[in-house]
């Protein structure tokens, strides 16, 4: 290290941890060479710290009015949460990142629907189809399996509905894509190569690289999923759903849903940015962003987050939702179809909750008590009037 002008260059890299082992030793030798060098280094380090603090100071975005909203809104939410928590009997409050998107209703008609005896409707279970990068399909259920992808990534399904990815010894050069498809009446959990956990709901699918390569971690979702994203500030985690992109900044946020022609993201805590085509909109906790696909508009509003995320903990929670939307959600898990004999009841707004492993008729009985709707179960079809 001789030329004076190269010193600052190397010192900055040294202080930022960008030097390799040899360069670091070189800097350390230079510093130890003389008292003058040592003083120069200490002085430079202090100055560098000031630069960093100055940049950080300018990057602070929080203002009291924004913070105050969070403060007051949180109080409101806590109160309501307590009510719900009482109902849910020990429902663990969600930590981590969640995001859910409901698939557009594609008008599928279940083929063998009417053949089953109607005594009780069975809830869904652990079920999924894995599409490997070579096009091979593997059905996953309640047995353990081990697989290896072309890039050396190891896949292990544990038989309890969790599929684990572990990167191979060598870093992969190109991304190799997998797709996990969860049918109606199924659910599955994924642990991706970066440590991110994903809960996939019934009738949903996720496309993702077996190992993440490059500057970002991008996955493509159809349906509904809850994400608990591992923090890595150098590689943003991006969820793409029907053209809406949700970019993960913080570590603790949550969920979104979709009715026909809409995609929603709901944030519990932390920070995410939602974008559709152009501008990115930052969400504050307890806010829901809804994209209308027809015109690409994004609408942000305050919501109570719990009903959006409870499914992940095995609970259906409905809060002032239309009966039509409720039946659609129940249909995905219990594999039932609703037939509305009376169009008017579709719009009735109802609240209620049910553990997902229970008989759905408990919920119907509850709805009959609190509304004019009447339910009769015939095979896999529920007639509502």
């Amino acid at each position: 290290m001789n030329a004076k002008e190269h010193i600052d260059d190397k010192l900055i890299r040294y202080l930022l941890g960008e030097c390799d082992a040899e360069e670091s030793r070189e800097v350390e030798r230079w510093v130890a060479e003389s008292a003058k060098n040592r003083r120069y280094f200490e002085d430079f380090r202090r100055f560098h710290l000031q630069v960093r603090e100055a940049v950080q100071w300018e990057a602070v975005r929080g203002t009291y009015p924004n913070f105050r909203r969070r403060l007051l809104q949180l109080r409101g939410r806590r109160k309501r949460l307590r009510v719900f928590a009482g109902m849910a009997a020990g429902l663990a409050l969600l930590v981590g990142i969640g995001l859910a998107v409901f698939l557009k209703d594609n008008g599928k008609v279940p083929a063998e629907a009417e053949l089953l005896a109607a005594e009780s409707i069975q809830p869904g279970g652990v079920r999924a189809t894995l599409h490997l990068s070579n096009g091979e399909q593997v059905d996953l259920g309640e047995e353990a399996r081990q697989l290896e992808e072309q890039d050396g990534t190891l896949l292990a399904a544990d038989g309890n509905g969790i599929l684990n990815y572990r990167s191979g010894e060598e870093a992969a050069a190109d991304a190799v894509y997998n797709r996990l498809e969860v049918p109606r009446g199924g659910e599955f959990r994924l642990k991706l190569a970066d440590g991110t956990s994903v809960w996939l709901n019934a009738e949903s699918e996720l496309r993702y690289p077996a190992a993440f390569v490059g500057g970002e971690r991008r996955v493509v979702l159809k349906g509904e999923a809850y994400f608990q994203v591992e923090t890595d500030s150098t590689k943003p985690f991006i969820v793409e759903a029907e053209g809406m992109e949700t970019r993960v900044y913080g570590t603790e946020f949550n969920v979104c849903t979709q009715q026909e022609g809409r995609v929603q993201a709901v944030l519990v805590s932390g920070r995410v940015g939602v974008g559709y085509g152009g501008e990115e909109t930052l969400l504050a906790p307890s806010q829901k962003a809804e994209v209308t696909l027809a015109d690409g508009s994004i609408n942000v509003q305050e919501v109570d987050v719990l009903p959006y995320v409870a499914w992940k903990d095995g609970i259906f929670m409905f809060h002032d939702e239309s009966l039509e939307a409720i039946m659609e959600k129940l249909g995905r898990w219990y594999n039932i179809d609703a037939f509305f004999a009376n169009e008017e009841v579709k719009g009735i707004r109802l609240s209620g909750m049910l553990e997902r492993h229970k008989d759905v008729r408990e919920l119907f009985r509850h709805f009959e008590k609190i509304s004019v709707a009447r339910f009769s179960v015939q095979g896999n079809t529920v007639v509502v009037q």
Partner: protein
Amino acid sequence: MAASDQTICALLAAHDEKGMEHLFDKYYKPLVVWAAGILNHVMQAEDVVQDFFIRLWERQEGRALQAETLRSFLYTSVRNLALDRLEKKDPLRHAADVSQCERTWEEYDTREEEMLARVRAEIAALPERSRAVMDCIYAEGLSYKATAERLGVSVATVNTLLVNAVKKIRKNCSGFRAELLVFLRVRRTKTVK
């Protein structure tokens, strides 16, 4: 003019929201930058400080604060919360910043405000590209490589832009620094008990 610690503690003891506002105005930014020094990420630092303030507001401990120890309580708590959070992050990338984690809050608290203001002004005067590089590296803790990818330039360009920016700030602040040193000696002798 910022409210005194006595005022803040008295208002918070009465659970008066005005106390929260004063606390925020006086301590939010310094605490965020303090936490960012540990986390190497401003947004995460903001989360840590906001969660901490909310906890103070919602729990009894916020009503029992003492004016004499408020400052040390705030800095120590935020530091511990930031370190907790740091543990969950990649330890390798941040190992370079141990000196930052070892700094005491008193050292941080008596940092040279006037100098920082001057450095901020110099940064504001830099070309946008240089500021973008500095934001990635200092506010988000990105590596040269990640910064290059984010901004669509080469790693060498990132290096050049950063080095030139830092050198320019240093050069422009050096005259100011000499004056400041005299001023600071005076101030330091006054604050020593």
